């Protein structure tokens, strides 16, 4: 089910009404029932996967917490008898036992993801390798249907389990409540990947009706629908056409495809997240922001702090830091300090961890070499950029014009274009073709396509271009205004009537400018496929 399905919208309105009508203590149960119904609609078998994650996490986190409690009791009981070293050794042994349970949980869940999402990719590559040795690769290639949102709910739940192991907070004792945290339906389509200590409180609070919150939440939902149906879905046919025939659409067409896809991806992903956060706001459940004006970033490192924030921080906390401070990494650092020099030893953990994290980030996006190369190219650019930081500082000190708003704008455009070029890996069928299409932008100067009417042959009419241009300008202005805090909140504080007018206007814009028409079928959200 999509956010744009009429059944979803009808169900959502019904849920809002019921949520505020029933007693507070039953509200989280209603959300759980809605989440199960939402997920079951995507396929009953999918429920098995999410149930396996919820059940395994519930029992193992409880076990880990009990073991931690028992270990603390044991230390207290022998406080006067044991020496400091004995206590330390006991704590280490106890932690190791808890780590075994956590490892089991992680292997079970990520193993499930590995088989379902990466089984076919792995077997295809194994068959190719067998083929290099002159044999016919005939190992069976599994064909699993990817359960909806598995990459999102699994990461969210495993983050919770790691936090319980780290004793950041106590585990959830009620299975139903944990199941709601795992399966909260607005996040199942494309995240964000929330943290338990951020989300749970609102999820179980059962907050009542609040006019301001509901009004602002509905506006956020409508804003998300505007991005999705008026912009992302409108430009989709052109993107599909431009990438479907790489022989015909080269040079400036590839450039257009890149720019169109950049707009589509931004409108699609941020629009979906706006809808999710808006639903949460109506229900009184704060959901983590996933974007912070990413295309205003001056470099790629900053861009990744502002785009898909919850995935980035997940990888930072649960992969980047643990790899960087792991004993083998510190030993490698020590060895390289002695053998290769202090400077290399100092930075080696950062380099290795960054490459590993971006390799995994690429894999997270999809089981294909395109995504792996995309991830690694991000890592290379980030590391080069990091090493050049002192150079940039000297540059900015020497040239005053590099500290102006105009130069900031240039940097933002450069970042947008760089990220657009990297995202071409999403579009074309393999890595060599992506590089080829990127290359054609520089040697195939068919610039005439911009004025000879070719733009009108890309399944977009003049009216479509008008809506897309106006929409892009509106997005830009909204981003500029948003730098000083929520625009919706400022309007609400100024005038309730004005705020109501804004809601009605947004609704009309969505209804009038949405890319509907005969046989309209809204497209899948892009990040739902990752």
């Amino acid at each position, binding site marked *: 089910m999509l956010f744009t399905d009429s059944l979803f919208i009808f169900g959502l309105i019904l849920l809002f009404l019921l949520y505020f009508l029933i007693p507070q203590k039953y509200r989280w149960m209603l959300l759980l029932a809605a989440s199960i119904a939402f997920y079951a609609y995507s396929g009953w078998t999918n429920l098995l996967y999410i149930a396996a994650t919820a059940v395994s996490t519930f029992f193992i986190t409880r076990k880990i917490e009990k073991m931690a409690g028992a270990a603390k009791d044991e230390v207290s009981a022998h406080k006067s008898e044991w020496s400091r070293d004995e206590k*330390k050794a006991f704590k280490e042994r106890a932690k190791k036992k808890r780590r075994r349970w956590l490892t089991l949980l992680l292997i079970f869940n990520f193993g499930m993801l590995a088989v379902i999402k990466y089984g076919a990719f792995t077997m295809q590559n194994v068959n190719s390798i067998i083929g290099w040795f002159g044999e016919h690769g005939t190992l069976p290639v599994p064909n699993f249907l990817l359960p909806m949102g598995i990459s999102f709910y699994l990461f969210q739940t495993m983050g919770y389990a790691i936090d319980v192991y*780290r*004793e*950041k907070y106590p585990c959830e004792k009620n299975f139903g409540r944990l199941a709601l945290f795992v399966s909260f339906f607005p996040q199942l389509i494309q995240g964000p990947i929330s943290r338990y200590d951020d989300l749970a409180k609102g999820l179980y609070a059962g907050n009542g009706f609040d006019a301001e919150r509901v009004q602002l939440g509905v506006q956020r939902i409508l804003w998300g629908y505007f991005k999705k149906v008026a912009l992302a879905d409108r430009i989709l046919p052109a993107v599909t056409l431009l990438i479907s025939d790489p022989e015909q659409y080269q040079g400036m067409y590839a450039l257009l495809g890149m720019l169109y896809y950049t707009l589509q991806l931004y409108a699609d992903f941020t629009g979906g997240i706006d809808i999710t956060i808006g639903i949460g706001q109506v229900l009184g459940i704060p959901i983590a922001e996933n974007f912070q004006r990413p295309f205003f970033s001056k470099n790629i*490192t900053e861009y990744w702090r502002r785009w898909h924030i919850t995935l980035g921080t997940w990888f*930072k*906390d649960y992969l*980047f*830091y*643990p790899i*960087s*401070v792991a*004993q083998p990494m*510190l030993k490698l*650092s*020590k060895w390289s*300090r002695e053998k290769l020099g202090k400077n290399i*030893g*100092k*930075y*080696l*953990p*950062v380099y290795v*961890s*960054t490459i590993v994290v971006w390799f995994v980030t690429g894999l997270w996006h999809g089981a294909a070499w395109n995504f792996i190369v995309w991830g690694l190219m991000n890592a290379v650019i980030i590391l080069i950029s*990091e090493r050049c930081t002192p150079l940039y500082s000297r540059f900015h000190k020497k040239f005053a014009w590099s500290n102006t708003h105009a130069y900031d704008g240039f940097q933002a455009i450069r970042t947008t274009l760089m990220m657009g070029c990297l995202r071409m890996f999403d579009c074309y069928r393999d890595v060599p073709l992506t590089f080829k299409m990127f290359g054609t932008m520089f040697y195939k100067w068919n610039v005439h396509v911009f004025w000879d009417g070719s733009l009108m042959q890309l399944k977009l009419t003049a009216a479509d271009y008008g809506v897309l241009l106006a929409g892009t300008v509106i997005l830009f202005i909204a981003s500029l205004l948003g730098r000083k805090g929520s625009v919706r909140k400022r309007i609400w504080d100024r005038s309730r009537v004005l705020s109501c007018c804004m809601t009605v206007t947004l609704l009309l814009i969505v209804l009038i400018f949405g890319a509907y028409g005969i046989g309209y079928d809204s497209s899948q959200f892009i990040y739902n496929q990752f």
Partner: protein
Amino acid sequence: MNEIRETILEILQDLHEDVDFENEDKLIDKKILDSFDIVTLISELSNEFDVTIPADKIIPENFNSADALAEMIAALEDE
């Protein structure tokens, strides 16, 4: 403790020579140190003090100032 603090200040100054680490107490909150700095810092601290800093110790409260870092190192040395 003072000795630990002095060594930490030297390491920090080596990372960013233009920051007043002596008085700054919001190194993470103000995004003065990013994740790359933190990992480089941990690598230096582990090497200098021969302690293991586990991933669950990487929280803003432990990295926001030279004093907080010194306290964390002292606690790890005591464990």
